[in-house]
């Protein structure tokens, strides 16, 4: 089962791309291999009639029709990819209102009374760690371990306090740049409790390789208990 | 027309346009009292003045290019280097403008 909604979106789109990629790749490689083998030089074969020879510019060869066919087929394929990408990015970049609130855990897609004033979590990159700032009433900042409730819609506002970082939750297949002076927003819904690796994805200095954190997704009661105790 | 006269004429237009540019800034709408309005109440919007200024600059550039750099009398292809550069620079600025202002 998927670990987050963003992973589902990614897998579906990646699957579409890979399906088409394998199709195109296999066709092209098979064609190349077939042609090279079929038309390889043999002892008794002759050079074709239109072999370019030193002494003249070669004859033009080829039909514009083939170009049109190639372009048309390619366009059909890429349009599918573009449409799929647009649909996916619309979802990825449109955070729903609200996030978890103390005492109120909205489900993804549910018609629950989301309070649009529900505060969001700030993620701030530093050289070389992440700050996770929780909203009130138990506002506090965590480093290294990022706790969230399962099945809750989480909206993160990501920025940096110093240099250009990139905040990525690896298994969730979601990341965004952390740029000083800008705030970028991502959102997701974790589906499964567990520990997930967060790393920095933009070279930010000598400590870039250990700028990690762990996302711990907890069952809702455990999360509420933890949050209330902070 | 004698080329020298042509060059002098172009020069006169260039200087005259510069004079207009400098004076037009007095038409900026401004609450500060350091800018005096020429006719008492006329003020042009910021956007209009910027357009006029850039338009005048473009005209001056065109005159210098066509007559001093002789592009009017050269093969068209020679202008292409600069024109392509201008197109590229415009693409850069337009796309960045979209980045900054269109969400």
């Amino acid at each position, binding site marked *: 089962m998927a670990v987050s909604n*963003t992973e589902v979106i*990614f897998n579906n789109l990646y699957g579409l791309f890979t399906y088409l990629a394998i199709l*195109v*790749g296999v066709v*092209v490689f098979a064609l*190349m291999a077939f*042609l090279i083998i079929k*038309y390889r*030089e043999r002892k008794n074969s002759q*050079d*074709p009639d239109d072999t*370019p020879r*030193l*002494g003249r510019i070669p004859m*033009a*060869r*080829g*039909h514009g029709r*083939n*170009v049109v066919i*190639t372009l048309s087929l*390619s*366009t059909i394929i890429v349009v599918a990819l*573009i449409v799929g*990408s647009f649909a996916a*990015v619309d979802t990825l*970049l449109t955070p729903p209102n609200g996030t978890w609130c103390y005492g109120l855990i909205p489900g993804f897609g549910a018609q629950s009374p989301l309070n649009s004033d529900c505060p969001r979590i700030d993620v701030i990159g530093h050289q070389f760690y992440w700050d996770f700032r929780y909203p009130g009433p138990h506002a506090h900042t965590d480093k290294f371990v990022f706790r969230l409730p399962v099945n809750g819609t989480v909206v993160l506002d990501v920025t940096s306090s110093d240099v*250009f970082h*990139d905040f*990525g939750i690896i298994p969730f297949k979601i*990341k965004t740049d952390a*740029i*000083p002076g800008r705030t*970028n927003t991502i959102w997701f819904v974790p589906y499964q409790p567990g520990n997930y690796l967060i790393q920095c*994805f933009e*070279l930010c200095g000598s400590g*870039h390789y250990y700028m990690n954190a762990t996302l711990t997704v907890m069952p809702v009661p455990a999360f509420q208990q933890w949050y209330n105790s902070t | 027309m004698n080329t020298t006269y042509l*060059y002098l004429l172009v020069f006169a237009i*260039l200087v005259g346009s*510069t004079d207009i540019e400098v004076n*037009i*800034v007095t038409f900026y709408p401004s609450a500060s009292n350091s*800018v005096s309005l020429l006719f008492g109440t006329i003020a042009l919007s910021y956007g209009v003045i910027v357009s006029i*200024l850039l338009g005048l*600059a473009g005209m*001056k550039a065109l005159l210098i*290019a066509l007559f001093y*750099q002789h592009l009017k009398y050269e093969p068209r292809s*020679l202008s292409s*280097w*600069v024109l*392509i*550069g201008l197109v*590229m620079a415009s*693409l*850069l*600025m337009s796309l*960045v403008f*979209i*980045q900054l202002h269109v969400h």
Partner: protein
Amino acid sequence: MSQEILPARISRWLFTTNHKEIGILYIITSLFFFVAAGLLALTMRTQLSVSDNNLLSPDLYNQFVTVHGLLMIFWVLSPFAFGFANYIIPLQIGARDLAFPRLNAMSYWFYLVSGAAMIMSFAFGGAPDLGWTLYSPQTSFQFTPTIGLNVGAAGLILIVVSITMSSVNFLVTMFKMRAPGMKLKHMPVFPWAILVTIFMMLYAFPSFLAALLLLYVDRAFGTFYFSSIQGGALLWDNVFWFFGHPEVYIVLFPAIGIIADAISTFTRKPLYGSKYIIGSMIAAAIISFIVWGHHMFITGIGITSTKLYTVTTIAVSLPFDVMVIAMVETLVKARVRLKAAALFTLGAVGLFVIGGITGVYLASVALDHALRGTYFVVAHFHYIMVGASIMGLIGGLYYWFPKMTGRMYNEGLAKIHFIVSFIGFNILYFPMFLLLDMPRRIATYAPNTGWAALNLMSTVGGFIFGLAQILLFVNLFASLRRGAVSGPNPWEAWTLEWSLPSPPPAHDFDTIPTIAEDGTYHFGNSPGYPNGSGYPNGSKVGNGLAYSHLEGQSPWPVVVAFAAFIFFLGITIGQPSNPNVPVTFQPFWPLVLDGAILGIIALYGYSRERFPVHEETNVESWPFRGVPNVKLGIWTFLGAEVIFFGVLIGAYFFVRTNSATWPAVGSLFEVRSGFAMTLVLLTSSLTAIMALVSAKTGSRNGLMASLLATFGLGVAFLIIKATEWISLGASGVFSVANGLPATSYFITTGVHGVHVFAGMLMTLYLLVNTVKGRYLKGDYQAIEHFGLYWHFVDIVWVFLFPLFYLI
């Protein structure tokens, strides 16, 4: 023609301007950098082969990954390709050299010294270590207080200068020096690929130069272009990638040209749809300038922009589809000879398909949210840059080795080289696609990530691939002495270089060939390809002169390059006295002054040197008929300057848009002084054009007066500017609070001021010559050329004045 006795001393190579020798210098030097950067890569791969490794410290790892990228992209891929371009293009178009041979030599020496600067950066507190993409604000002095980055930036600036000189040279050569009948449409694909590449170079590199300049000024003077939190990071992102994306096509296209032509030769068929291949290259080159935002997909630029860039980026894959299908269709009814060059170029097509398909993944803004900054990206671009570009260039090396040396390499060893390289390549890079979770540029990783197995496999592949290249070097070195004699056309190819002996004599063609209407070649009276002398149809084609190789020697290119090297080194190696003080500009004056003085002497010597360049009169020159070569070169250069200033002005717009407040008109700068400067410069344009009028009418006094007036007005401009700068500086404008308005002004008008200063030096040179009586007897071109430059400088000011003083 007799064989000239060629001096084998070092000075022959130091002073050569012959395109073939410069081509060889480029190829050998780029292979040296290839080995150096490859060793860096192997060290990195070893470090990454197991988790929690500490073979390389993180600092060193970051430096290695950065320098590996910079060396490969700038000092290996393009120079390797241009080594071939230098050697082969004049031969393929029927010319005897490039348009500006000394400029060509200078390009090479600038390339060499720039590489020295980049490698030397390790010694100055550490080489650049933030990736070849050098993102802000980590590159600011605050976060990178060492000066290795400055020295590296000096190396980059020097290579941009080298490339710009090459672009101008090749553009003029390819438009103005083609043999009679060699219309653009008759050129093989390799020259077309180079032509498209240099167009991209001309218009992309000035953006990089502007970015490097602004970065250096930020670091040295404490300005805030890229370090400001009001968008500084995105300014670098935009300006860098506007250059960066065309750049990656620049390093790819020459190889595609080689691949296309080699496929035709080794399949014994004309290329399928060659005009469509060429059209696709042109389309891809144009589109490459509007896709750069795909490197910024998750920077928060807004959904409209990201969708726009997704569309343009995916669209750019379409011309490449056409190219690949055309190359594959060439195989139909062919007779495929699987020599080494064919193996490498066909293999390159296969790897290019994989690289290109995975590029389409990255073009999707949605997938990029997961794949950005991961090894998927690393795999993608290595499939293109190594799989398509390097393999294609190695194919070119095997293809043209017989022509350049007169010897055949060992075919069996070359085939083994291919097989081992191809297998090693895929073991090295394919696992990286599967490492799509792993961040790039990390020095090591934890054991529990599970990445170790694939990393180890990749490292093994890396060693296989790297060690396989030993076979290449052994093969070529040994074959230099002991290879079989190749003869002029061992591959039975059709392009013009194969009509010459292997290796060609110093002067290339005895007689420039003519291409008749029916496409046949004619060399004087002799049938077939022999390089005969004599004139077809009794008319003179070329002058048939073979000039001694020694005539083409000049010491100035290498001296100018050396002077530039020590000048820029002096500017960048000054140690800051206090790392916490923003203004750290501390040039090492002895080197700066030595470099400047030597440079001026060398440039003067260069201009004064009598260097015979044989300009053929009977050439194809569409679309620049009647335009002399130097004038064409100057206009080409001005096209690049448009981008350079365009980016500087664009940066000004960018920072101004992102600033909450900006000083009102007249509060920071006196409109009066700007007005005065504008009038002064406009008048100097008038005097400059009057100088041309005087020169054309032969009036010495008029010319002297006009040049003196131009000089005086230029000096006046600089004096007014200096007083303005001093008064602004004294009033504490250079402070954090006033930051960007003042700094954007200082930098943009400062760069313009340097251009004015250069114009002043040119005016002085012209004055000295006028005293000696030059320019008055129909040789007024220098005055005209100076005017073209000077009026351009005036045009730039015409825009700067309202932009900085009036709005």
